[in-house]
């Protein structure tokens, strides 16, 4: 039982990270039907920006929590700007082109950003000051680190904030309107280019937050760290029903849990296999993903 609970906690933590990254995929897909393969790189860039800022601020003698908070906000802002630049450069000129062209542009952007990180930050892993959030609780076999609580808590806060943004604000209404009917949205006064840029920015900011949490949780960041979680988060977004915010959360949690339980009860060797078998299985019976039925209801 303790073993099960511990694995459950592990799964929720990993799932929360996937969910945060998946939101970016799903929001961008919802609004311009583009699978933004460069999204994982925002996650990596956020992780790097975070450690650079934390180290700098810590050197200025700030309290560790203040360092963390400020770095989190600034990194999210940085990645938001980066994503807007990427959108402007690589996707906007292709808005009228075929979807395949934009997809290829996204793949190219991913390679470009990853190599940019490698050239500027080096090939070695960059260590995170994990001592900021060291420690946790233990009950027998079960251990919960502060970092796990922090990850799940911050994910919950960001999700609530995102939901309010999308469903209760002017920007959110504009995003939903644009995703449903771009021409009509323009005709009721919405500048769709700006809304699309905003969507990219929000998705990238969430990925940046995930990048910092992953850095703190696992202890280091690496230029190629965006690739694998990017693929998993993409799978999570598709599983949950791409274009659907709640779906991204559910998909993220499922992929995280399946991975952990497959590794915990069967073998770590096959965990990815299980994750993707679940994905294929769900898509076989529900091609639109878990939340696919009312996909239009809540999609951004």
């Amino acid at each position, binding site marked *: 039982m303790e073993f099960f609970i511990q694995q459950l906690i592990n799964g929720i933590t990993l799932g929360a990270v996937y969910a945060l990254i998946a939101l970016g995929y799903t929001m961008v897909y919802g609004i311009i039907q583009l699978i933004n393969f460069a999204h994982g790189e925002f996650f990596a860039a956020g992780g790097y920006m975070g450690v650079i800022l934390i180290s700098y601020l810590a050197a200025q003698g700030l309290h560790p929590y203040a360092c963390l908070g400020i770095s989190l906000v600034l990194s999210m802002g940085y990645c938001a700007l980066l994503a807007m630049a990427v959108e402007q450069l690589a996707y906007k000129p292709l808005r009228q082109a075929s979807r395949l062209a934009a997809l290829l542009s996204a793949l190219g952007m991913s390679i470009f950003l990853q190599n940019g990180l490698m050239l500027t930050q080096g090939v070695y892993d960059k260590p995170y000051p994990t001592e900021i959030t060291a420690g946790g609780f233990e009950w027998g076999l079960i251990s919960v680190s502060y970092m796990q609580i922090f990850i799940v808590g911050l994910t919950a806060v960001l999700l609530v904030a995102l939901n309010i*943004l999308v469903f209760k604000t002017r920007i959110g209404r504009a995003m939903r*309107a644009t995703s449903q009917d771009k021409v009509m*949205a323009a005709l009721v006064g919405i500048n769709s280019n700006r809304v699309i840029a905003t969507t990219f920015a929000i998705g990238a900011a969430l990925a940046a937050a995930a990048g910092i949490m992953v850095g703190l949780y696992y202890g280091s960041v690496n230029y190629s760290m965006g690739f694998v979680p990017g693929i998993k988060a993409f799978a999570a977004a598709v599983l949950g029903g791409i274009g659907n915010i709640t779906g991204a959360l559910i998909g993220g949690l499922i992929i995280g849990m399946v991975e952990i339980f497959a590794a915990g009860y069967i073998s770590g060797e096959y965990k990815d296999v299980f994750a993707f078998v679940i994905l294929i299985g769900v898509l076989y019976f529900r091609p639109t993903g878990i939340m696919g039925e009312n996909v239009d209801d809540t999609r951004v």
Partner: protein
Amino acid sequence: MANLTLDDICVRFGGLQALTDVSFSLTEGEVVGLIGPNGAGKTTVFNVITGVYKASSGKVDYDGSTITGLRPYQVLSMGIARTFQNIRLFQNMTALENCMVAQHSRSKVGVIGAVLRSSAQRREEEVIAEKSQKALDFMGLGDKTDEVASNLPYGHQRRLEIARALASEPQTILLDEPAAGLNPAESVELMEYIGHITDLGINVLMVEHDMKVVMGICSRIVVLDHGVMIAEGLPGEIRKNPTVIEAYLGQ
């Protein structure tokens, strides 16, 4: 004030001449009907005015400035709103939200303000909701506030489209076949609503096939055939105009 003038508008799609030298104007509080057989270019006129299509030549003036070449959202913020022949509501939003979206260009709080739930943001939301509710009330949809658009009956959806256009606080409204699919009783109701709209000082340009509606409320009528203006005048004159009759009968 809010005078819309089309000046020698031409639109070409490849080799197809969709509009040729179309010129007419619309003044404050006026209801002008735009009629003509199918494929005459009526909707193209709307698309040129609202910036969906670019005119090949000619210009559109509004409120003393040229609006040709502006993007659709900029045209709306100038004060020109529009409805569609086939209903294009945001189907998954509530009636109120549909109207609130139209307030986009009349409000300004951005992402940061929205996330922080600043007091300015909350105040603005309240104002937007209030104005949108007024637009719904105006179109007799006051009790349908939280109804999801796709669940509304057809006639109500038509009226919601107009309510949404009104919610953007326009001075000019372009209505594309507002009576399409309505039964005679609903058509009469619609004419009353359009009358109320002009009472607000909003001028209306309307494409409509239902001649009862057109003749009933339009102060002037413009007739298009194959992209060319063949007549312009009072309803009585148009009804007797031989060219117009030929164009319709020739169909």
